């Protein structure tokens, strides 16, 4: 255990000397999400996803670019511990970010910021459409479910990136963090394309009932404790996936010729 904690400390030290670019990106995204908070609190949960992707990229580029791999030469360790330490560190960072984000989201929802800005006074009638469109993000239970889903996706993306690294290695790219986010955006449009394929082909006969089943289950799990149960289920599934990816990464890294 001590060895794993030491390895985590080394990685944390690496973040201190990091170039400003990624932090500027962080700052930009934080401002964007801060503005998004005016619309609804649950937008802020996207921050978890961004942190997970950016931190993962930063950690891996540190290892490759700054020679942190060499530092493991002076710390007695094995491949298994290195993988576990990385997974543990990034999971911890994602979890802490998640907790902070959840607190911010809860405060925003509780403060009724949305109600003040959009539904009072002159805006009351003109923003009916906006109100309807954003309602899923405003409802307490729905915002928790959205948060749980984004948290789960963050853990899945982060652990998949790490596993890929330990399986195939890292090829440094310019603006890796930005590219990571662009991948997410690309994924979003890719998802839209996939939906279009499903809608216009016989695939829908299978996909629609399955979708309906998921919505039905999620909807019912959203009732108890104002969506807390569904949120915890999503998060638990995310951790389950991360653990599985860690196991696979250990196996892949042990096998890999360095």
């Amino acid at each position, binding site marked *: 255990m001590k060895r794993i904690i030491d390895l985590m400390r080394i990685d944390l030290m690496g973040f201190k000397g990091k170039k400003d670019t990624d932090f500027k990106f962080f700052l930009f995204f934080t401002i964007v999400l801060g503005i998004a908070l005016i619309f609804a609190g649950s937008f802020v949960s996207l921050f978890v996803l961004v942190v997970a992707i950016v931190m993962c990229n930063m950690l891996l580029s540190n290892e490759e670019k700054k020679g942190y791999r060499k530092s493991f030469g002076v710390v007695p360790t094995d491949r298994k511990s290195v993988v576990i330490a990385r997974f543990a560190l990034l999971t911890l960072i994602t979890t802490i970010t998640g907790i902070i984000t959840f607190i911010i989201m809860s405060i925003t929802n509780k403060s009724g910021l949305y109600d003040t800005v959009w539904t009072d006074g002159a805006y009351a009638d003109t923003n009916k459409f906006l109100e*309807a469109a954003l309602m899923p993000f405003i409802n307490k239970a729905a915002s928790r479910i959205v948060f749980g889903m984004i948290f789960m996706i963050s853990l899945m993306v982060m652990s998949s990136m790490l596993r890929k690294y330990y399986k195939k290695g890292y090829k440094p790219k310019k603006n890796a963090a930005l590219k990571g986010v662009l991948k997410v955006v690309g994924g979003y449009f890719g998802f839209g394309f996939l939906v279009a394929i499903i809608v216009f082909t016989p695939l829908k006969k299978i996909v629609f*009932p*399955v979708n309906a089943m998921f919505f*039905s289950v999620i909807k019912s799990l959203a*009732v108890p404790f104002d969506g807390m149960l569904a949120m915890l289920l999503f998060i638990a*599934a995310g951790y389950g996936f991360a653990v599985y990816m860690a196991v*696979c990464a250990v196996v892949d890294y042990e096998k890999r010729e360095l």
Partner: protein
Amino acid sequence: MKLINKMIGRAAALVLAAGIAVSGTAFAAEKDEELTLPSGISVSAFEKKVGFLTNTYGSEINSKLPPTSAAVFHGDEILYTNYEGYINMKDDIVNDENAVYEWGSISKTMIWVSIMQLWEQGKIDLDADIRTYLPDGFLHNLTYDDTITVTDLMNHQGGWCESTYRLFVRDADDIGSLEEELRKIEPAQTFRPGEVSSYSNWGAALAGFIVQRVSGMDYTEYVHKNILEPLGMEHTAVSADHSDNMWVKEQREKLRSYTMPMMLPIWEETGAEPVYCPIYPSGAAVGTIGDLARYAQAFVDDEHPLFEKAETQEKLFSGSAFYGESDIPCCSYGFWPQEYAVRVYGHDGGTNSGVANMLFNRDSKVGLVVLTTNSDHNYNPMFSLLPEYVFGDYTGKELSSQNEKSVELKGEYTFSRTTLKGIGKFYSLLGIVDGDKIEGMTDIGNDVYKLTYVDNYSDRAEIFGRSRYSDGTEGIRLGSAEYIPVKMYVPKICLLSAFFLAGISAIFVLLAKRRLKKAKIISPYKGEFIFTWAQLAKAASLLAIAVLLVAAMSDTGISKSLGACAGVTQIISFVVCAAAAAAGAAFIIRRKISKYGKICYFFSIAGNIVTASAIAVFEMYRFWGC
């Protein structure tokens, strides 16, 4: 969905408001003697409103429309008819008076009329135990010994919960006699008879079987002789495969139904292959809008063409169940009273291929019938807004008083029309309403609740009743069903969630173990065989539930064979998980295991106990008799 509904409704209301503003003076200039509908508008104004709505809807969709047929009548006079859209868009077959539609549950009203006819003839006693009219031992799935009266069947208070198994079949040759089909899918009796209203297709079809037994005629033959022929309804079929009227059967084959996938403005054709209702008295009727109008007109006719005595028709609409202790009826011998600006009676219906509505006000003798094959009927203003145009909005103002007090509901409620026993028991947890979240409901006395809200910029109200049950709990009565309190909701939903989690975790553990074994990182350990099988069992149990849920949402529902497969899977899973939990406990107690090993065994035991408990508590194994 509600939001989208609201948005469309609001948009429609805005458009209509503009339309009325433009043509308001024209309405005022209509001739004085013109009939005014219960909503307060003249027939010509109604026609203009509907015409405006049709044009707007058509231009919004920007394509051909699915067929919607509507008729408004006053006594024996048809005031308005509309045949909108295409019954087959691909082949350009335009909707007209010869188009036939599936009437769905409106078919049930023929059972109730038949029962009242036989009651009038003294052949049926509405207060008699239904077992008097059934073969010995016909009902083999009863929980309570209490009498089930014929009136209980008409009020949907026989106590049967929703059946897990399918109501429709694809192959007409699979359909047996009504008696056989009823025996095949007898649901569990989960409520004390006469206590809880739980809309039951099976219970209604059982009443159809009683008609058959008492009259000595096949149900189809009875309905033809005593309802369709006296009313001159020549374009209606009532048998399961529609073979009792070949013209209708041929017309039905031309009909297509349409849906908008994911709310995209593209119509997807469905219903090319008809599905059949084996317990046909409950929902197999097919016919034209003209025939449905003729049928509805009979109920406002002072000549009472369906009954020998006027008193029988009066009794049919005198109310057989009431909200709380009030005289506001919530059921009238199988017909559903509804409060608009006036009280109307009727029934609606829905199948995989269409939706239908029949409403009439007996005082004004005005009625409305609407049929469509557009399964997104909630978004079809032609279907959803017409009742308001004819009968007006209900505001509940006449029930307002100073003694009104707000109702504070506590706890969780589930709809009584759900599966409460058998492999689908967990469904009851999938439609929970949180009592704390219901706002705007007031108690207006006599155990009647009023819910007021604003929709389309106008005040509206709905009436509910408080139900008191023999176990001391209370529920909320809607028209055809009730919201009943769920006991031990939090532990149950936590168990169900833990069951999902155990299943998902088992899948990850199995995958991880496979990877580690392949890489020869882990070596065989004590009890590995049983634990691996337990992980497979947990995953299989979850998969079985997922398959059932998907099948339940398909066109034909869950088949008996699928239910049996799922049930057997759950029995095996239960045995394996219980054995693995016991083995895990034995290993922890008897063997020296590392701290890490103990944690692994502990999680394994917990997962197995959760899965086995969920299978037992939610009766996932019980594939028979539900």
